[in-house]
């Protein structure tokens, strides 16, 4: 299936190509999220938040259940040892699948209070885990767990140190959602679904960050708010936003908008060459090919 792309600046074709095809990877997905490629097994993992399931699939095969019910799990990523990390959303924890298949809770409380609902997650090469803690998993229709009460007065971005300590990275956000590092990990990008913007932070050696700067603010009236966020190896920034996936150069300039049909929620680079883009949507999961590889996962 072809799809439309708005080429909005010279050079976009070099990055995302000029032939834009989609292949359906999974259907019957109520609300897809958490796309992550497992380079060790050559499998693709994703969540269906409303369908309350974590899935895996080998492209071309039928998806298999990893966890159901899944506490309405949302974003996912691999850690350095290839263990799947999960932003637990409705379950209000961050958890990890251990090698033996058991699950370990990595974060559930901050300063003695239950955290909100972990939305998306990423790992830094020193092993620290970063996640966004937006409020939607306590409120959204069809996405909540057993306790709907918000206890924290912030919507934080947190990191979990290798020692297991939970540290606030920033409380700048109304609704922090997607997050990713630049290829050199000197920058942390975080988007806000409510304010429809992306902020960028200088990352300190210990993993803390400096003051945030506005990277881009969306004013496009099309349906959709910033959600998934990823970088390619050249530092271009991909954000699911109004009407599709927006591609920005490292300065924030818009290069293109990939108008993936339906409502794309998140994207993940994958495949052996990291040049496939898996896009989770409301209704299905699709894949397209691109020229510049994404930042490789662990």
């Amino acid at each position, binding site marked *: 299936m072809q799809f439309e792309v708005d080429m909005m600046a010279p050079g976009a074709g070099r990055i995302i190509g000029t032939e834009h095809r989609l292949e359906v990877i999974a259907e019957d997905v109520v609300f897809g999220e958490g796309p992550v490629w497992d380079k060790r097994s050559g499998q693709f993992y994703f969540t269906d938040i409303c369908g309350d399931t974590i899935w895996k699939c080998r492209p071309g095969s039928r998806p298999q259940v990893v966890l159901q019910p899944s506490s309405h799990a949302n974003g996912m990523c691999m850690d350095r040892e290839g263990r799947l990390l999960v932003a637990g959303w409705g379950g209000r924890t961050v958890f990890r699948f251990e090698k033996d298949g058991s699950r370990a809770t990595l974060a559930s409380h901050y300063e003695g209070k239950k955290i909100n609902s972990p939305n998306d997650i990423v790992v830094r090469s020193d092993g620290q885990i970063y996640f966004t803690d937006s409020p939607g998993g306590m409120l959204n*229709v069809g996405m909540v767990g057993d306790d709907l009460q918000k206890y924290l007065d912030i919507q934080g971005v947190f990191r979990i140190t290798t020692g297991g300590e939970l540290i606030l990275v920033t409380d700048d956000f109304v609704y922090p959602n997607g997050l990713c590092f630049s290829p050199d990990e000197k920058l942390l990008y975080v988007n806000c679904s409510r304010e429809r913007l992306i902020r960028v932070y200088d990352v300190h050696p210990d993993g803390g960050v400096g003051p945030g700067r506005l990277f881009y603010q969306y004013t496009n009236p099309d349906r959709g708010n910033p959600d998934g966020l990823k970088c390619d190896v050249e530092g271009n920034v991909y954000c699911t936003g109004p009407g599709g996936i927006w591609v920005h150069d490292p300065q924030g300039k818009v290069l293109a908008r990939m108008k993936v049909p339906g409502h794309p929620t998140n994207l993940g680079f994958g495949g052996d060459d990291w040049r496939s883009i898996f896009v989770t949507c409301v209704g299905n999961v699709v894949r397209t090919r691109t020229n510049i590889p994404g930042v490789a996962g662990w």
Partner: protein
Amino acid sequence: MAWKFERVAGPYKGITGGVAWDGSGVLFSAVQEERILRFDPATGSVANFRKYTGRTNGIALGRDGTVYGAQEGGRRVIHFKADGSTAPTCELLDGRHHNQPTDLVVDRVGRVWFADPHNQVAPYGPPVYPFLERGSILRLERAGRAWELRRITDDTSEPRALLLSPDERTLIVAEGNVELGADCDLRSYAIAEDGGVDDCTVLYEFDPGERGIEGLCLDSAGNIIACAGWKKNGAGPLIYVYAPDGELLESHVAPCDLPMRCAFGDAGLDSLYLTAGDGSLYRARGTGRRGVARR
């Protein structure tokens, strides 16, 4: 006798909505602020009962003091537990998410009856789940630790408020929302042995285009106190008092536009507390009527 309302709290951002007497204070919703506040008549002070309520409007207490909320923003009835947590109930009617609860009442056996209309403000989250075509009165009841949900009325479209008569054999419903194009009336249904209802009896009809009833409460004689009307047209913003058969006994001028919901309170249960479109909590003391004590 005329009721003289005084503002006792607010104004808050947006409207105040649900209101309930908890035995010594008044719980009321600042809907847009996503808070439930508590007014203490002994001190005149206001404190948070709950923050982050997800646009909860209606508030109701069970016999045992359990506090429930009609969470318009999340399309669910929620249970504010004593330990500070908030539990969901059952959000699915025959496998589909119901609409946006706005008012609720708990009966003697702990079943939660609620009005489930559509709302002008969209719910939280991506619009994955379509609305039910009709707004109905629905009822939650316990099934072990879980909840089950049953549809009670099938002749309503936008019910805004509800009551049970003192003997709990009659269901009283304020139907209609002019802002959604649904004409307004006050109606009653006899509750059958199986807990269902048959055809309604219309007790009072508002003129087409007139704002109908947003909130209801009972007095100790079984009369129906109703908050209705607006300055835009019709009889204006009023608090009506109807006999159980719908006879209009009296009406009182509301202290501001868009009266919302009401509840009796204070030591003798003879003050009427009122929420309103201006985001305030009002009180009229010495109404000459008394509320019904929680049994």
